[in-house]
């Protein structure tokens, strides 16, 4: 048996099971990061994660917190219902780009606009992962997907939507940021930002929106390493990584 001081170990809130995400998927990583933060705040018993319809639908099989599985796109509405009943619980709406920006656009904007005191974790992987790689609202121009076989053409499909910029036009949100998780350094930064957001929620500051530029190695047809490189070199050009608003710092 190996002993010694533990420098890093699997967070407690992350169940000891295999996550069924593909190898190298950002979903796995962000599930883990979330658990680390939950552990660090010691809020496991009062956190509710809303599982989206998307690759993260089984979130609750990995994160050991109370959970509600939403209908596709409706996670923010469900989060609203929960938070209004239990304002002291920590409610996290975890959603993909199809879920959050396509079918769930109305709920996303209105929940942000009401300034519900929740944290939205937005996994932008520029594609519909779960259903096998169709165009997402965030699919880049020219990107080939199952439903844009010749690449996304703005004439027909419009342009990729920038979620943070959109939400930044609303008054109520407290904290809006876009992050990436392409290497250990950016992962650490992202964790810091997400932790801040959840801290704001704990302190009843209001709504946070944290976008994570994510990969989907499987549907992008790339190795995980290459997918992270693509985020670094292509995706983050269109979706600048930055803090858009931080009322706590203002």
């Amino acid at each position, binding site marked *: 048996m190996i002993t010694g001081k533990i420098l890093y170990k699997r967070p407690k809130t992350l169940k000891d099971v295999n996550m069924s995400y*593909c190898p190298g998927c950002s979903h796995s990583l962000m599930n883990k990061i979330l658990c680390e933060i939950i552990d660090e705040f010691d809020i496991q018993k009062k956190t509710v994660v809303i599982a989206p319809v998307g*690759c993260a639908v089984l979130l609750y099989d990995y994160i050991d917190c109370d959970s509600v599985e939403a209908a596709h796109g409706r996670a923010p509405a469900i989060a609203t219902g929960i938070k209004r009943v239990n304002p002291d619980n920590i409610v996290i709406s975890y959603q993909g780009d199809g879920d959050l920006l396509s079918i769930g656009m109305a709920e996303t904007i209105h929940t942000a606009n009401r300034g519900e005191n929740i944290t939205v974790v937005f996994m932008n992987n520029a594609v519909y*992962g779960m259903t*096998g790689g169709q165009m997402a609202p965030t699919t880049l121009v020219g990107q080939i997907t199952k439903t844009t076989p010749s690449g996304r053409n703005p004439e027909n499909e419009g342009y990729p939507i920038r979620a943070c910029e959109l939400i930044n036009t609303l008054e109520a949100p407290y904290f809006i940021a876009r992050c990436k998780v392409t290497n250990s350094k950016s992962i650490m930064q992202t964790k810091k930002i997400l932790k801040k957001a959840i801290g704001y929620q704990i302190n009843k500051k209001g709504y946070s929106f944290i976008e994570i530029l994510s990969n989907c190695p499987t549907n992008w047809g790339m190795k995980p390493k290459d997918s992270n490189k693509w985020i670094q070199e292509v995706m983050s050009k269109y979706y600048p990584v930055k803090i858009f608003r931080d009322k706590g710092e203002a």
Partner: protein
Amino acid sequence: MTNKIILAGFGGQGIILSGLLLAQAALLEGNEVTHYPAYGAEMRGGTCNCSVVISDKEISSPIVNKPDILLLFNQPSKNKFEAKCIPGAKVLINNSLINEQALRNDISSFYIDATNTANKLGNIKIANMIMLGALSKITGIVKLDSLINAMPEILSARNKKLIDLNVQALKEGYGLF
């Protein structure tokens, strides 16, 4: 005469594709065919299998619950399906990835070193064709030629360049028995 076949393995081993090639070959020989993938969860990974039914008359049920032919590509598939086949079933086993111990003695097991052979041919992904080639030889359910002729229909839009390699693998598998 109706054959009920299950092909099973990991996602990524080309299970569905080989099932389709088998169905297409059988169609070319004038049979009725159905192919039904167990598409499982809306996600990657895990096991993957498909049912192929080949018959000289209209096929009622495309679902195979008791196969008479089994193609097993990995250990979990063997664990799951070996018990389900009918007595006398022919079971083809990719023993590159599966231990050889048959759990039943009322079936005929055939061991094919498919993954390793594929590796030797330079592409681990064509293990499925090795298995199909062997199937043709062992069961005669479709002719090798039919499988080869079926190839362009199935691979057309995908990896046409790989057709040659795939044909080579079919032949290799055929030659193993």
